[in-house]
């Protein structure tokens, strides 16, 4: 099964890549449906009917694969990345946070998350409850936001984004947060923070109307989770042993690799079609990530005299984060510059600013996702190239107003996510408490929270 998925993925990559080259050669942006349907039955290729949305089998196949790829980012990608960075005695608990969150969000999303995010807009702030428990969604229904794939695929594709966003914040809380508190936090945060912010940017809310550019989730996913990470880390307070002692760096590298791989579904999939735009997002993602890994490595090499492997992995993740909002808007030069800066700015946030300010963001969820996300969102407003995507025109292409719009979107997300995360933490604190007691923290959360051990040697 896995081999099949990988094979399909490779083939689709090739196809979308070829299509991109073709489109680039013939410059004018052609409607995607005509070019793409290579081996499809004649009916779809004959005439691109202008109005009625029609399911495209190529797009659908790609989006099914892309969805599975994004799922892979949380499990096992993020679980391994975070779990390997946690101390020996807390590895399993750290992995459990990603695991349980994926499950919780999976359920809440089909119950009400999708409806409130992507339902008919109410006043720019929230979606309508019309699609609770996916009512009205059927095998033939198509969402207005993704007109060539079945709505079911759109629902689950968006589900995987909601899940990883919540899971990302856990990186700042590990090694001291009660598991019960995390479960409640997951439910509340997805409901009260992720759903509205995703609606504002992607579901036709006020930030979408304002013209904020966020291709695959720089604001909705990374800034949102990054700020939640910072606020939560401040409320939780410092760990008894506030140091990074990775239990297993090989798992971290495996996790980082899986994140990178899955991110192709995240970014290229955000084109919501198997077309040239997906190809652009794909190559931008890979380029910026490779650049950021190298850039982080050299920054660290100069700063601490050692090119660490964790540095390579961290740089790659920072690059993935920063290119996320820009993936389908910038050209390759934009991607390279975003990559360079993503290896420098988050590095200094993590290595210099964090120790100076003294907050205990255990695995740098804020330093990498929050800072990297803001960097990416702002740079999108500078480098968005209208020849890649008509929807985005940045400062360098004569539209300085875009930069302002980006800053507004960042500020709104920072304030909203910050305030509501704080309220959620206070609520959880009152009901179950957020922190394990000192003894349990020192013995390790694997044993105290789950009665298990990651390594029995």
């Amino acid at each position, binding site marked *: 099964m896995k081999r099949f998925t990988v094979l399909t993925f490779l083939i689709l990559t090739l196809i979308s890549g070829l299509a991109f080259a073709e489109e680039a050669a013939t410059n004018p942006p052609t409607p995607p449906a005509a070019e793409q349907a290579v081996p499809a039955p004649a009916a779809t290729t004959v005439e691109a009917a202008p109005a009625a949305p029609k399911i495209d089998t190529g797009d659908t196949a790609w989006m099914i694969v892309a969805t599975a790829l994004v799922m892979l980012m949380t499990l096992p990608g993020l679980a391994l990345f975070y779990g390997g960075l946690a101390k020996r005695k807390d590895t399993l608990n750290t992995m459990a946070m990603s695991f349980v969150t994926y499950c919780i969000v999976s359920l809440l999303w089909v119950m009400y998350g999708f409806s409130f995010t992507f339902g008919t807009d109410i006043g720019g702030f929230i979606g309508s409850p019309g699609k609770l428990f996916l009512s009205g969604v059927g095998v033939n229904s198509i969402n207005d936001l993704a007109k060539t794939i079945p709505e079911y695929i759109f629902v689950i594709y968006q589900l995987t984004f909601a899940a990883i966003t919540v899971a990302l914040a856990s990186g700042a809380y590990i090694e001291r947060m009660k598991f019960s508190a995390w479960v409640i936090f997951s439910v509340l945060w997805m409901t009260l923070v992720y759903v509205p912010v995703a609606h504002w940017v992607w579901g036709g809310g006020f930030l979408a109307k304002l013209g904020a550019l966020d291709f695959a989730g720089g604001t909705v996913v990374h800034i949102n989770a990054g700020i939640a990470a910072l606020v939560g880390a401040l409320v939780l307070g410092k760990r008894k042993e506030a*140091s*990074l*002692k*990775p239990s297993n760096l090989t798992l971290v590298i495996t996790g980082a690799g899986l994140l990178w791989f899955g991110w192709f579904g995240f970014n290229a999939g955000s084109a919501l079609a198997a077309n040239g735009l997906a190809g652009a997002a794909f190559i931008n993602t890979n380029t910026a990530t490779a650049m950021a890994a190298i850039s982080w490595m050299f920054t*660290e090499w100069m*700063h*601490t005299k*050692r090119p*660490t492997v*964790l*540095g390579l992995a*961290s740089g790659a993740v920072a690059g993935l984060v920063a290119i996320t909002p820009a993936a389908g808007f910038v050209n390759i030069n934009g991607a390279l510059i975003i990559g360079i800066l993503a290896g420098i700015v988050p*590095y200094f946030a*993590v*290595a*210099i600013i964090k*120790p100076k300010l003294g907050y205990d963001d255990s695995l*740098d969820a804020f330093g990498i996702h929050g800072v990297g996300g803001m960097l990416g969102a702002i740079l999108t407003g500078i480098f968005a190239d209208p020849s890649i995507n008509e929807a985005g025109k940045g400062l360098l292409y004569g539209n300085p107003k875009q930069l302002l719009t980006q800053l507004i979107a960042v500020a709104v997300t920072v304030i909203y996510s910050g305030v509501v995360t704080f309220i959620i933490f206070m609520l959880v604190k009152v009901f179950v408490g957020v922190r394990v007691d000192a003894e349990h923290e020192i013995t390790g959360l694997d044993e105290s929270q789950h009665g298990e051990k990651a390594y029995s040697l």
Partner: protein
Amino acid sequence: MKKVEAIIKPFKLDEVKDALAKIGIYGMTVTEVKGFGRQKGHVEVYRGTEYEVTFIPKIKIEVVVPDAIIDKVITTILEKAKTGSIGDGKIFIFSPEDVIRIRTGERGEAAI
């Protein structure tokens, strides 16, 4: 009969083991241990922040030898485990009350 416990630098293990085998030591127990002495710990860097690691990995060798060759054993370990820099380790000598081979029940030097 003496028990020799030597804490040495991990990379010296093979040399010490081969040299001891040459002078007629047929068995030993080796453990990976951590500790500290006069050699201060070292520094590890994760994401640009330096962490002091106070416990340094070492190897502990345990051998029980007949009184006749104890001096030879000590000089061999001294010669092979020494680098001259701080952190080369230590040798402790004990007198075991008895040694018993489980398979046969033999006792004393015959059981070594």
